[in-house]
């Protein structure tokens, strides 16, 4: 029997975090349920294209209700904490600005870095918890040899969420528990049923919690309209990798690297977005083979098992959540910047996304993709 601790559980109202709360309670810990109120789902309701009411989403009243019911079933104290201001400042604003600069953001990583493992962890400690547990699929371990906390991939590779967790600091990792790191999703659902949780069969959520239906373009319009800000004029030229202008586009935020549809030009062979040049408002298009690149630069790098990356090292690198980590070499190229050289060129390296570096199961670190060098024919 492990010693009894006071543990705060970040409860979203989904199966994973609910099961975490049930497991920790069954292990005899003092469990406190916390749900973050991050975004008012009704806030942009009524803007053209936005739904009137949003159901079954992060921060929706239904999810809070579900989380509260679980807490009630388990007999644990439960609170909703309001972090809407920080969420807007540190997640929604950057999300909007990244798109308007021609990058493709990952709000979930920002939320983990600035909200869940920062603000919520502080609240957890303030109210007397030793640690914060979440329903993420990942593993945290302390390594006696190097005296550092390590982040490792989940046992279930299909559920592994380390891609979104690369930004965690040593301090954050030392106070974080991922009890699902060694479990599969069916096992989690089975545990939820065993603990008598009514939501054991609730479907997984996939989308960005504040963007209804994944329609980020309508969201940008509605958000900026609500703020009384004009949508930045980002219309410009469609150009080839040789610099030939072949058409026009209505705004760089409508594009993402690798996109094929909606380019508005008719050519014999399929064209893809190769690159978005934010400053020049140019969308560079080309054939499939030009999407491949051998190198990328990532900045704001957070190394985990070491305090700094000194020597070049062999790693595998994930450039988006659904990407099989590809082998390559990692070397430091600036104060908090690295250069990745892949063994094989990778398709659609996208600025704004994260590059996360692995040594087997171990997360070596990660950073934000700043640029890549398109292949020149």
């Amino acid at each position, binding site marked *: 029997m492990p010693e009894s601790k006071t543990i705060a559980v970040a409860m979203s109202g989904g199966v994973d975090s609910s099961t975490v709360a049930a497991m920790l309670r069954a292990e005899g810990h003092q469990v406190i349920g916390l749900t973050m109120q991050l975004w008012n789902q009704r806030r942009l309701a009524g803007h053209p294209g936005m739904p009137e009411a949003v159901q079954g989403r992060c921060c929706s009243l239904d999810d809070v209700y579900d989380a509260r019911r679980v807490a009630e079933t388990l007999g644990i104290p439960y*609170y909703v904490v309001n972090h809407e201001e920080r969420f807007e400042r540190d997640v929604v604003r950057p999300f909007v600005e990244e798109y308007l600069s021609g990058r493709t953001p990952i709000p979930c990583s920002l939320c983990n870095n600035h909200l869940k493992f920062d603000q919520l962890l502080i609240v957890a400690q303030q109210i007397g918890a030793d640690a914060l547990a979440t329903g993420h699929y990942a593993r945290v371990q302390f390594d006696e040899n190097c005296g550092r906390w390590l982040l490792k991939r989940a046992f279930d590779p299909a559920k592994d969420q380390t891609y979104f967790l690369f930004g965690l600091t040593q301090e954050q990792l030392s106070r974080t528990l991922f009890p699902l790191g060694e479990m599969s999703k069916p096992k989690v659902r089975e545990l939820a049923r065993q603990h008598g949780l009514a939501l054991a069969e609730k479907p997984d959520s996939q989308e960005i919690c504040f963007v209804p239906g994944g329609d980020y373009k309508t969201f940008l319009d509605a958000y900026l309209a609500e703020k009384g800000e004009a949508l930045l004029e980002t219309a410009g030229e469609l150009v080839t990798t040789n610099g030939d202008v072949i058409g026009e586009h209505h705004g760089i935020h409508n594009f993402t690297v690798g996109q094929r549809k909606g380019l508005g030009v008719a050519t014999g062979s399929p064209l893809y977005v190769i690159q978005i040049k934010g400053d020049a408002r140019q969308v560079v298009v080309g054939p499939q083979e030009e999407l491949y690149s051998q190198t990328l630069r990532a900045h704001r790098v957070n190394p985990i098992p070491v305090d700094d990356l000194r020597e070049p090292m062999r790693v595998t690198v994930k450039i988006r959540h659904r990407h099989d980590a590809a082998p390559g070499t990692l070397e430091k190229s600036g104060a908090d910047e690295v250069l990745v050289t892949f063994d094989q060129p990778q398709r659609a390296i996208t600025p704004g996304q994260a590059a996360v570096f692995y040594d087997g199961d171990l997360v070596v670190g990660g950073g934000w993709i700043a640029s890549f060098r398109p292949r020149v024919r």
Partner: protein
Amino acid sequence: MRRVYFDNNATTPVLPEVLEAMRPYFTEHFGNASSIHHHGQQTRAAVEHARESVAALLGCRTGEVVFTSGGTEGDNLAVFGLVGAGDHVITSTIEHHAVLNSCKRLEAMGCEITYVPVDGRGLVDPDDVRRALRSSSKLISIMMANNETGVLQPIEEIGKITADADVYFHTDAVQAAGKVPIEVKRIGCDLLSISGHKMHAPQGIGAIYVGKGTLLQPMLYGGSHERSRRAGTENVPGIVGLGKAAEIAKAALDHGDLVRMAEMRDRIQEKILADVQATGVNGEGAPRVPNTTNIHFDYIEGEALVIALDLKGLAVSTGAACSSGAIEPSHVLTAMGLSADRARASLRFSLGKENTPDDVDFALSLVPETVTRLRELSPVYNKTAIST
């Protein structure tokens, strides 16, 4: 775990005497007060007896008391029962949402609303009300005591203004009833709403004083209950409970029992201000109801402090809960000029009849150490502490 409840402005426990008085009206005295037979006569008598008790608490005639489902209904009845399209309404920025959101609805219906401000102590200036008057002004609605700070508004002066003008005056006295004497004639109001559960009667019952000659459009249509001002079979147990609670409150006010409560409140406040740095009372210098104090603890989130204290057994509150249960910064405190940070760092302690000096000691044993812990873990506090 020992639990102490200092959130009596949110709701209060039903007093044992009140529950006892209500009990027969769930079972043996079950009649419909409108029925002509014995059963109906029994409950009718109980309802009218309760009406006398409420009238005595408010200093009005029995025929001027209308039972409602609570404070929100009373406020809505006053607003929507009097005001129509094209009318002008004067209210304040620190009203309860029952008044504020009713006024928002009026705006959507084409009415103009003037929201008079408050000063740093949380007080409305009667001159602002006077200056806001127009020929189209139909209603002034200014609360008697604020729910968050306990600050008592100068409603008698506002009453004098309305006496000379052709305008109705409603006051939301939900947080004042049972805490300070109420005399509707002295106030000079036409309408005054109260709520049972803020004064040790159950939730779901309230009353509104409607001065004789005040022509109110009902909001609920149906039978001729409550002199056709509020249709619907009477909530007899609730009404009986409110009547009993009104009697108890009146006796306590007459005997000066609330001095003891004010002493406890003052001790909480003085001790916290003495023992905890960077604190202050919101509403300092203004007259207040005897049970409430609102204190800011700079550099912390009130929300985290409320949770931390709850986990140790002390129930207090901060801001207003939104639909998810999360806390939003108080519109009352920001209207008083507090920064959003300070508004969020504020806690309300509100005492009730059942609190004892022992409870105060319990709170004082928890609050300073909990605030210290929160500040030690607060990035804002550490940054500020280092830079000063």
